[in-house]
């Protein structure tokens, strides 16, 4: 089971308190009815599914109930960092060489 740090509660809590909410930083169009089929497919169905660093959303369901974002390695399942919803995608990851 993963240990996940909620950036609101500022605590590491067991995975059972959380629900994964899929890939992060996929913005819904402000004019969804006007989206082309191609763009809608990208928004709705296409996922990066990386083997390595993933940016994903979690919800602290049985805690503060808030959504937040996390950076995790999908090979080791280790979290690199978590940050609050609405904050930009981190340009530099802690511990990254570049």
């Amino acid at each position, binding site marked *: *089971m*993963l240990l996940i740090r909620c950036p609101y509660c500022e605590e590491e809590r067991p*995975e*059972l308190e959380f*629900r*994964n909410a*899929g*890939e992060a930083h996929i913005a819904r169009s402000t004019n969804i009815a006007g989206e082309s*089929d*191609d763009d*809608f*497919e*990208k928004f*709705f*169905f*296409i*996922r*990066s*599914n*990386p*083997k390595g660093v*993933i940016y*994903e959303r979690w919800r602290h369901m049985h805690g503060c109930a808030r959504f937040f974002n996390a950076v*995790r390695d*999908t*090979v*080791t*399942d280790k979290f690199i960092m978590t940050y609050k919803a609405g904050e930009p995608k981190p340009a530099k990851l802690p511990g990254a060489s570049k």
Partner: protein
Amino acid sequence: MKKYSVFAIAREAMRGHKGWEEQWSSPEPKKEYDVIIVGAGGHGLATAYYLATVHGITNVAVLEKGWLGGGNTGRNTTIIRSNYLYDESAGIYDHALKLWDGLSQELNYNVMYSARGVMMLAHNVHDIQVLKRHVHANRLNGIDNEWLTPEQAKEFCPPLNISKDARYPVVGAALQRRGGTARHDAVAWGYARGASARGVHIIQNCEVTGVKRAANGAVTGVDTTRGFIGAKKVGVVAAGHSSVIMNMAGVRMPLESYPLQALVSEPVKPVVPCVIMSNTVHAYISQSDKGELVIGAGTDQYVSYSQTGGLHILQHTLDAICEMFPIFTRMKMLRSWGGIVDVTPDRSPILAKTPVKGLYVNCGWGTGGFKATPGSGHVFAHTIAKDDPHPINAPFTIERFRTGRLIDEAAAAAVAH
């Protein structure tokens, strides 16, 4: 290829078993092939086998980053059934089921297909409605599936707990008698042996690291850990890693990869005569011929390539198993493991041509690909050989996620995913 038979066993018994030959050869990769299959699991090897036997294309390489059948082919719970809701799914899964019947004879290799019946349990009114809808839809498609009362279910599977005060009471069941199990490793080995005998190269420990394309976009071959290997046709059959390979060719996929776990108990005498599944409590169980109870759990909730999973997922499954089968509460579990399954948004597979010329993909089988192995390989070989899908896999395109013409087994929820 020397044929296996009772005479061969007798002959080898007389001479100390010195005459058995290797089941498949391990040649050095050539510079170029007509077709490269990425992934030597059941689906990939079946594809190569049918390319050779049905379409006469034998200049084929199957590239495998690890060992043959060491991915999800060797990690699944070996359940075979075709009781899916939609016509398209019924078509492809029943095509496979028909091939399972007789596969051992065709391959001259005992895949131990056993039509012992797959029973899906209903625990509430909603389950009854969903399962009965499946029973009717299946019968309209010519697929056997029948409704059982709890007493009939108990008669078919004596260890089942149908008491009314069970935590998950059994209020009925749907039974597909042609469903059952097979020996997963033997499926990979049998197809590998058959393909190798016809000239297909099976190259293990050869990881694909890139997909090369010409200026006009067409595929020219793949980079591997053993150098560049050319081919004008490349079929990607890489299960959990399919999107990784497709990304190398510049194609982004509607896929997400999740760990899926299974576990087996200590071996005991025959006690579970069929396969029992429960979608509501998410557990499925059967007994292998070695006597182990084979138990399937659910996926983890997050994308991962770790081939492991959370312990609480197994615990949840065992809770359900112990409620349904109180006699197993003191059974010891021997080992558990995980595989990485690639899941599409509608929980139906993709077997199709891609936007890239010469690139074909067979993926997205999610948590239930083993049962489809022969049918999947058969129609995918057709797709590659003819550069055009077989009518059975024609609906399973990538484009369905743009057009919206989904095959929504996810919503149909007959499948455990």
